[in-house]
């Protein structure tokens, strides 16, 4: 009798520890989704389009870091800024060459262009770097740390810390600098923004650059955990999109929370039900949100517009 009770108790503790473990790893992947989601939202708010090439910038972040590390033999601390800079340049070129020249910039045309752009970038990456999966070394060792029975890797902490930092910088930029406020003004009222002297087209360009920086950073910090390859952008991009939808396309906290919720649910689902359902969970959430609360989990239904 005693033995059974003991075993029962032990199993409960193990289950709790497991749940904690899944939550931790869910939070760190969720943070990645959040960063990508914010990238989606920033472009959406500035232009009204969903940039389906967003995931490719995530891929570029990881692959370029690898390129600078392995081919050019740069140290990690130098490879990362280089990779981010090249990704930003890619975002800039993408806007200049594919988005701006469009004669009839209807949202549907633009969305199709972004899909074409994503296929092109992915194809180029495959030609350049091949189809192999690569790993980036973790930023600071891979000695696991144990917290309340769950083990996490130093990279998890890096991911959470860098994400928090980026979110803080993002918030500061959009709420306390004149350029950030100008970008928000463009998203609220383009015509009025032009009339106060804001160059709306430049703001659109900025939004692409910022989004590609965020995307590539996400790709870089996650690469030591999940490996990287030319085609990681598709899934990560869609998950980020999902986070943005949960957050109602807000470029602030709502999308961050959306990403974290998605990451945790995914990780719990994979751990407790079956890891085969991992991706399905994200898309079921996406569909549910679109069916039931298309304004996002925290958004108010659209009522204004007088």
């Amino acid at each position, binding site marked *: 009798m005693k033995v059974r009770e003991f075993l029962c108790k032990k199993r409960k503790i193990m289950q709790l520890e497991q749940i904690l473990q899944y939550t931790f790893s869910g939070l760190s992947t969720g943070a990645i989704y959040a960063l990508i989601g914010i990238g989606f939202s920033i472009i959406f708010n500035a232009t009204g389009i969903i940039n389906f090439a967003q995931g490719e910038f995530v891929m570029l972040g990881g692959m370029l870091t690898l390129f600078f590390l392995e081919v050019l033999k740069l140290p990690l601390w130098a490879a990362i800024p280089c990779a981010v800079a090249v990704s930003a340049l890619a975002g800039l070129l993408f806007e200049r060459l594919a988005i701006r020249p469009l004669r009839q910039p209807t949202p549907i045309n633009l969305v199709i262009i972004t899909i074409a752009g994503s296929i092109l970038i992915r194809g180029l990456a495959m030609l350049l770097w091949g189809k192999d999966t690569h790993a980036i070394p973790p930023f600071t060792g891979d000695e696991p740390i144990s917290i309340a029975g769950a083990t996490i890797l130093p990279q998890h902490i890096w991911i959470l810390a860098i994400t928090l930092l980026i979110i803080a910088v993002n918030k500061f930029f959009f709420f306390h600098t*004149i350029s950030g*406020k*100008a970008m*928000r*003004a463009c998203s*609220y*009222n383009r*015509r*009025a*923004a*032009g*009339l*106060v*002297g*804001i*160059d*709306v087209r430049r703001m659109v360009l900025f939004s692409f650059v910022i989004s590609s920086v965020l995307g590539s950073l996400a790709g870089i910090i996650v690469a030591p955990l999940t490996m990287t390859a030319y085609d990681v952008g598709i899934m990560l991009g869609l998950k980020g999109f999902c986070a943005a939808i949960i957050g109602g396309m807000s470029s602030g906290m709502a999308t961050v929370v959306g990403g974290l919720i998605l990451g945790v649910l995914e990780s719990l689902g994979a751990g407790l039900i079956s890891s085969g359902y991992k991706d399905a969970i994200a898309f079921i959430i996406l569909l549910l949100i679109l069916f039931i609360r298309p304004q996002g989990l925290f958004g108010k239904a659209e009522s*204004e517009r007088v």
Partner: protein
Amino acid sequence: MLRLKNINTYYGKVHALRNVSLHLGEGEIVTLIGANGAGKTTILNTISGVTPAGGGEVLFRKEPVTTLAPDRIVKYGISQVPEGRQVFKPLSVEDNLELGAYLRYKSREEKSAIKRDMAQVFTLFPRLFERRRQLAGTMSGGEQQMLAIGRALMANPKLLLLDEPSMGLAPLVVQEIFRVLERLRRENGVTILLVEQNAKAALKLADRGYVLETGKIIMEGPSFELTENAEVKRAYLGKDKKEIWER
């Protein structure tokens, strides 16, 4: 100061302005009156570069500004207060005003000048000072109109274009706003081009006026002349035909 020469503007295939020519002198208040769809707003938007002219020329202080983008026009010193206020609703009053000075945020000295100008806007419209932290979208129509004017003033314009500032506002608020416009001309020497449905009030404030009909200027002259003109009276000042007959 501003001269439009044979301006033709099109919306796709619609010919919205036909050979419009007009001019504004330094420090003048000029009004455009006309029915809905006569092209008043289009004239302002053509000047501002929102709907650039398809033909003709816009000269500002003798320089051509016909095909410049809206933000470049603002740089020249022409600010528009658009129809329906168009304030940035989810931003605070202060942020809206700051954005009005967006082009001036280049140097440190400018920053203190911007602060001074904001203080001046607050003395013109004390109501905005009381609500400076409030979100623009939560204010009344009159307050939003004040904010829209204040925001345009933050760019330090030489020429202010106003599109229907009295629309949907209570008569007292309209009076307050028109008094401010007069004060701006008197104290800051701002030149004003005013588009109005409320022709009576507009002609009272303005020195001169142009009457627009279906994209053409059909009449122009000093305000007192237009006020006395039988045609203007009938069509825009709401006087009864009979009343004019009987005189």
